[in-house]
């Protein structure tokens, strides 16, 4: 005889059908990107639209590399640099501040935390013009500083780490550190940071993805000479016509690193996102 709970959670074929459908829908546009990216330009406006990958990826990607207007390779390298630097910084500053907000007592703590949360509500496009002017004054126009420095900290990062630290790290652990005579920074470095590793991995991956994919600001401040990947992609279709198979081949290649990172660390991301929510 099956127990009540087992009966409750049994899975019917319908469940699988629904889930497979959802998975297909999720993957399809991504697959479509690959289809167009591996087709010749002529075949993409066919009716009915093509449904399977073709064999023209090499040609398409050669055109990407030969496209002087886009500097695809520079863009790829720049994106790797910018995303890595921003990710490391957001995780470190986020965990440091998150630790302070969660485990240390200081005046103005609550009001400062609230301030951080309010900053999450600021429309990103809002400061575009003044920020642009600032970059010009600093001489950062068309440099990687412009797309890196303003993003070295993240309100979401601080908030997320604060939430995680306050639950995952017991006060006894920190007290024990103090008894041993450790400074707060030592406690952070030796006790808190290792304990925050799962959340840090999630924050890191989300930050990496976000930085990798950010478009509007890099587009405003960089030129095709020195682009990030997303900016480079936008210049592929620079002319009056759009070579879609070229654009999609490049987009697929540009998304590939993220997909690889995601497949490698996917379990941890998913676990982490859920961790965060469980703690609510």
């Amino acid at each position, binding site marked *: 005889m099956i127990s*009540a709970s087992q009966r*409750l*959670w049994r*899975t019917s074929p319908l*469940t699988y059908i629904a*889930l497979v459908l959802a*998975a297909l829908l999720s993957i399809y*546009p*991504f697959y*479509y990107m690959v289809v167009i990216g591996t087709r010749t330009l002529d075949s*993409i*406006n066919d009716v009915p639209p093509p449904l399977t990958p073709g064999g023209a990826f090499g040609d398409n990607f050669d055109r990407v590399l030969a496209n002087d207007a886009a500097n695809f390779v520079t863009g790829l390298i720049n994106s790797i640099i910018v995303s890595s630097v921003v990710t490391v910084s957001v995780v470190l*500053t*986020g965990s*440091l*501040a998150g*630790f302070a*907000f969660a485990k*240390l007592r*200081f005046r103005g*703590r609550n009001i400062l*935390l609230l301030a951080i*949360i309010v*900053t999450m*509500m*600021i*429309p990103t*496009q*809002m*400061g*575009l*013009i*003044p*920020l642009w002017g*600032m970059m010009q004054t600093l001489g950062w126009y068309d440099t990687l500083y412009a797309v890196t420095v*303003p993003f070295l*900290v993240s*309100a979401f990062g*601080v908030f997320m780490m604060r*939430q995680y630290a306050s639950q995952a790290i017991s*006060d006894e652990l920190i007290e024990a550190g103090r008894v041993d*005579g450790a*400074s707060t920074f030592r406690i952070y470095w030796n006790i808190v940071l290792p304990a925050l590793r799962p959340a840090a991995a999630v924050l890191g991956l989300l930050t990496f*993805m976000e930085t990798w994919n950010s*478009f*509007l600001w890099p587009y405003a401040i960089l030129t095709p000479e020195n682009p990030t990947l*997303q900016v480079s*992609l936008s210049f592929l279709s620079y002319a009056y016509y759009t070579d*879609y198979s070229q654009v999609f081949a490049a*987009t697929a290649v*540009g*998304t590939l690193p993220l*997909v690889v990172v995601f497949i490698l660390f996917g*379990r941890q991301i*998913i676990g982490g*996102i859920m961790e965060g*929510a*469980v*703690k*609510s």
Partner: protein
Amino acid sequence: MSLSATTAPPSPAAPPPPDAASRRRRGYLLNHLDLKYSPYLYIAPFFLIFGSFGLYPMLRTAWMSLHDWDMIGDHSFIGIDNYTRLLSDEYFWNALVNTFGIFALSTIPQLLLALFLANLLNRTLLRAKTFFRMAIFIPNVVSVAAVAIVFGMLFQREFGLINWLLSFVGIDQVDWDGQRWSSWTAIASMVNWRWTGYNTLILLAGMQAIPKDLYEAAAIDGAGPWRQFWRITLPMVRPTLIFVVILSTIGGMQLFTEPLLFGNGRILGGNQREFQTLAMYMYEMGIENLNSAGYGAAVAWAIFVIIVLMSLLNFVLVRRSAK
């Protein structure tokens, strides 16, 4: 990770260490200073960088919004005129309606679908759990720009896949960017595609935190799966649901790239501004038009206020649901 935590009292910090007799005086002083001031050092990087590159531009925008500001010419102080103009600006209200319309179309179905999928994924005996979770999450990895290009092609009038599929059920070519409902649907579908999986997983996490014995008790009382969903699951995930709504609100009110790229980069968002969002209107006034930068700044602040108001509303709901 719920915002409700912000209103919760902070967890008690570690009490100062016992003043052991063995410690020398100097060590104590150092320790005291460390405890008192080091937290400020730890949060300083955030406030320094945010202050320079986040706060300053925002305050500058506020200053601009009080002026008649020509980007490449002069400006003069006009007080709150830009804000009063906003109230009677038909296109501002149009953008507001569009933003809320797309927001509704991209939040309600998304949440229902996410709830449904999370409920399916929550079955303990489900095989290939990790595969399904990852597959559903993967759209979140793809950049908005790429999503917009792909969906732009799918929704093309002449050669698009969606019109081709619709032709089988006898529906004529839909001019997706030609009408309000169809453009909203197309844009919302991009947002839905990108975020449903993310929200599904957050909701799933909330569901997994529900104690199993609640269900068992209900089962013994003879409640079927549907009844259990309504009676137990839904009330218990309500805080998580509201958290998801807040995140969606912040994103939805700032929606920009999807509708912009959907309309071939035209800032009007359709021939009759059918899908021009608030952020696009801000961009049109503040950046595209040289001489109305001050007005654009006022639109920017209006967006901020709307987000804050909607978040406050959510805070109230969170409190209610917590009672």
